[in-house]
């Protein structure tokens, strides 16, 4: 009678597997562990590989690390565009990055190496927790929960959708849940995309390092190769090929620090930004959405000084809208005219805004009518050029004009209502 295994082979047309690789701990293991300056640590849940690297606060990774400690609540608020980050304290932040057994996600994905970084004792400490086999996962997770104990904030790159869900899943499966929701979390992926979406494509950690921090990693491994490297390690216990994974992970952690500093500085130091590297409009919008209109207006003014600004019209219009919101109407009026006279006289929005201002605020029907007629001329030109005009704009114009003419008749020439 055929065994189940023989039947399975017959059914699935998979050739017999290669003989199982040797499970013996490779000779290189102790050498590599010592080369990595790692050690084996035991806790109540078992053993795991522990590695710690300390960096002086003056260590420069694009920027000196200590600059992170100088960041304040409002910096994090801007970086994350999230008021809840106000209470984020630099010395209670844990930088986190995991290396996993799969990129597909789901419950069968394990985090075999968890790297964290934090500031302590006037140093920057990177700790790495590595499981030599799946059986060490409980010990690893427990160690992780220990280092989280005195932390309140997290900084990651795509951690909200990737690293934390994976760790959360691992916690649930090992019946050792960590309340991740309780942490203030700054995910640099979203923050970076806001700032650099247009200038850095794709907006990956490595591309940011290259473009913003100004260095290129040597001999780094691509992320998609990592799961296979770990599976090979599980089979043959050879540490050599996974040494670069540890190094890759340390680099990631250090970059989290520097990129955070960079992003926060883009907001706090928006007056002195290096040109052509940032999405200026996004910076203004962040200030606006966080409710700081005067800073948003100021940022507009700063950026409008730049030559060849790609989002010129967008920023001018935003500038005027902000001024309007703050009821600085005369300034807004000037900006609208700036658009009409100097930038793009075919853009409908300033005409509409000006007409509204004259009609409703200044109650100057003549001026309002004059601006509507100007707009009409411009729009007719566009209509001729393009062979048609957006109906909404046209209708609005006609409607507004009719109303103004009517008002004018009612009140007599030039009269006030």
């Amino acid at each position: 009678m055929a065994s189940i295994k023989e039947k399975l082979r017959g059914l699935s047309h998979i050739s017999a597997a290669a003989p199982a690789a040797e499970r013996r701990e490779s000779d290189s293991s102790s050498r590599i562990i010592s080369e990595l300056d790692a050690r084996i640590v035991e806790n109540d849940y078992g053993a795991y590989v522990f590695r710690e690297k300390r960096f002086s606060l003056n260590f420069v990774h694009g920027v000196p690390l200590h600059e992170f400690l100088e960041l304040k609540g409002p910096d994090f608020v801007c970086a994350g565009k999230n008021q809840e980050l106000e209470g984020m304290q630099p010395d209670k932040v844990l930088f986190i990055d995991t290396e996993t057994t799969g990129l597909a996600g789901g419950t069968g994905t394990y985090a075999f190496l968890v790297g964290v970084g934090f500031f302590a004792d006037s140093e920057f400490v990177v700790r790495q927790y590595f499981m030599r086999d799946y059986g060490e996962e409980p010990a690893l997770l427990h160690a992780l929960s220990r280092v989280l104990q005195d932390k309140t904030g997290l900084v990651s790159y795509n951690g909200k959708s990737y690293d934390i869900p994976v760790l959360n899943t691992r916690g649930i499966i090992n019946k050792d849940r960590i309340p991740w929701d309780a942490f203030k979390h700054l995910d640099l992926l979203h923050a970076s995309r806001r700032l650099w979406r247009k200038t850095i494509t794709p907006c990956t950690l490595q591309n940011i390092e290259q473009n913003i921090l100004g260095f290129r990693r040597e001999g780094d491994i691509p992320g998609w190769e990592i799961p296979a490297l770990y599976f090979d390690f599980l089979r043959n216990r050879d540490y050599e090929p996974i040494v670069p994974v540890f190094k890759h992970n340390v680099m990631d952690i250090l970059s989290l620090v520097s990129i955070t500093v960079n992003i926060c500085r883009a907001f706090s130091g928006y007056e002195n930004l290096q040109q052509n590297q940032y999405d200026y409009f996004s910076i203004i919008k962040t200030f606006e959405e966080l409710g700081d209109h005067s800073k948003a207006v100021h940022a507009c003014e700063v950026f409008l000084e730049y030559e060849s600004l790609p989002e010129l019209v967008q920023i001018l219009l935003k500038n005027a809208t902000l001024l309007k919101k703050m009821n600085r109407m005369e300034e807004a009026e000037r900006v609208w005219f700036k658009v009409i006279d100097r930038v793009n006289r075919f853009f409908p929005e300033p005409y509409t805004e000006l007409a509204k201002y004259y009609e409703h605020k200044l109650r100057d029907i003549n001026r309002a009518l004059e601006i509507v007629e100007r707009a009409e001329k411009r729009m007719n030109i566009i209509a001729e050029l393009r062979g048609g005009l957006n109906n909404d704009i046209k209708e609005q114009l006609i409607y507004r004009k009719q109303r103004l003419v009517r008002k004018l008749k009612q009140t007599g020439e030039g009269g006030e209502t």
Partner: protein
Amino acid sequence: MTIDQVIDSLKRDSGFNSNTTYWKHIPAREAEYAEFPENLDKRIITALQKHGIKKLYTHQADAITSAISGKNTVIVTPTASGKTLCYNIPVLNAVLHSREARALYLFPTKALAQDQLTELHSIVELLEEDIDFDIKSYTFDGDTPQSARKAIKSSGHIVVTNPDMLHTGVMPHHTTWVKLFENLQYIVIDEIHHYRGVFGSHLANVIRRLKRICRFYNSNPVFICCSATIANPVELAEHVTGEPMFLVDNNGAPQGEKYFILYNPPVVNRELGIRRSYIKETQRIASRFINHMLQTIVFMRTRMSVEILLTYLKDFMRKNKKSASLIRGYRGGYLPLQRREIEKGLRDGSITGVVSTNALELGIDIGRLQVCVMAGYPGTISSTWQQAGRSGRRTGLSLAILVASSSPLDQYIVNHPEYMFSKSPESGIVDPDNLVILLSHIKCAAFELPFDTDERFGGRFDGSGGLDSTQEILEYLAEENVLHRAAGKWHWMADTYPAEAVSLRSAAEENVVIIDKTRPDEKVIGEIDLFAAPLMVHDEAIYIHEGQQYHVDKLDWERRKAYVHEVNVDHYTDAQLKTDLKVIEIFEENQTLTNTTGYGEVVVSCVATMFKKVKFNTHENIGWAKINLPELELHTMAFWYSFPEEIAQSIGVDNQQLGDGIKAVSNVLSRVVPLFVMSDMRDFASMPMVRAPLWQKPTVFIWDQYPGGVGFSKKLFHIYQDVARASIGLVSDCGCENGCPSCVGPVLEVGEYGKSTALLLLDYMVKNAGK
């Protein structure tokens, strides 16, 4: 005319009656009521009363009592007997008892799931007047927007989904469904008779995984299953859920008077056994009712035939000066909004006739119509009753007519009304332990949670049962580098998502896609299973698809694609298949002096060798060519019946006749099997052997056309005599002279004496019982 008058006129119509084989009168039935169960939350009773439900039917009360007391329950009821209350009430009762309680509903299709929610909401709304929290129910399927998913995962009391979504979308992410799994009290599986064969065997394994996850979260849900009337509802539900079941089948719903007519189109060519087209007959019959403005549903077998009949009927309306828009079509491929509009039109009576595929067979609420016409036997008796149940109100008269096609099953049914109208003979068969299916799901399960090194997959909630082979399969997967053993557990070790690679519905693992290159924009016109491809779409074959001939330009075997273009030629092609069967292992055998029956593992190898070009009408052979395709091997389970060596003498035929007779028996048996084992005809294949290699006796083999088998052959081993008896009925009642496609196969295939010899052999099988 009213329906009563139309039925009277039918009774008097001798032309019509010469083709009816049976009139079944089903008298009206009074409702049987029962009180609300004692331990039911009073707020539910109030809500139901507001809803107009003052009392429960007997089966509802029993089902609710059983489910509330924590028994796994299977409810067998006909269409429209109020079965949804049977599970909605216990579930709502649980939520009222603890607002953390959760339930999971599984429906075979997305459309049914959507429809279910509408009904649930109407009760929940009334209930919410009395409670201070919302009872939330959601569908969760491929169409659910990402933005809504988080709320469903954390706060949905009732999550309505389908097995495919549970398999690929929910369980591999169970950690995001912690609330659901920790508090799961009920799992509802509606239309469980739908899950048979391959689909059912897959579902049984999906449920094994689901229970494993529940155990992890310490929940112990109760199963409530609903089934149409089949021979083995308890057995099927127990196989699918792996838990013992309590049966509720005391239907208490009222039913109006009904006539059920079996109609067989007249024979137009006796020699070849050809009957008048059943589609044309359906058209004539349906027009008659529609003409009198009786609300009528017509069920067709294919989407194409829906459109054909729809055109006929609309023309008919125009000719009779009536609005063609009173007749609508309904099938897959129509837009959801359009479907909703048609459903509504049927409910409010603004649509008189609808021509549908089986899309309207299941649960969707279209109210109840007066007449149902079925063009062809729907394939199973339970489907037939579900379709017929679309006509019939709680009071008043209704009518269902089955118009038979010339296929063997149809012919059997119309000539043997006892199969339709007495105890259901058909069983839902699954084999959750099919190795191919099992292996796929053990992979998925290992991805979901690591296996313990003493775990047995498929055990009950109470810890008993489970498969002996679990650990061996896990070892195999470790050797394949998919799993890794560490610290007493088997862990997933691959950067893949195994559920994605496993389809719950596909019968064959691979199909050949047929691509029409007639016009510059290439078009896929169909698929064909891998095993049929060498016969049907080899190079230079003439392939016929929906009445159109196509020439096969190239069969790209590696890529599983056949390229064809339209042609119009006077011949067809007939490929020869060399099939070989080897018995690998005998699982059960029954030897007597007069015969041997058995079932076990076999390898069937097929290779297409050559094909002939045959002229239409004259059947002249006008050329041939070799086919060069690799041999295909299928490891599966087979049933066999061996006659004694001297059978030819004992029934008085020569060897040539015996050969033809065995071929004829092999044909007819495999065609009749679906009467007893719910399945498609293509789920089986059969082969006659005048001298079977191992034992040198004339033998018929019938096997499951799926790697590893799904339990059909095993069932056949136990019931083959019923199948033989039914085969005798089919063959002897068939009007043809020497064999036709409606019984033993055409004379060209089975010879002049095939039919008569088959009857002798079948008679021998029935009389010489093995036990």
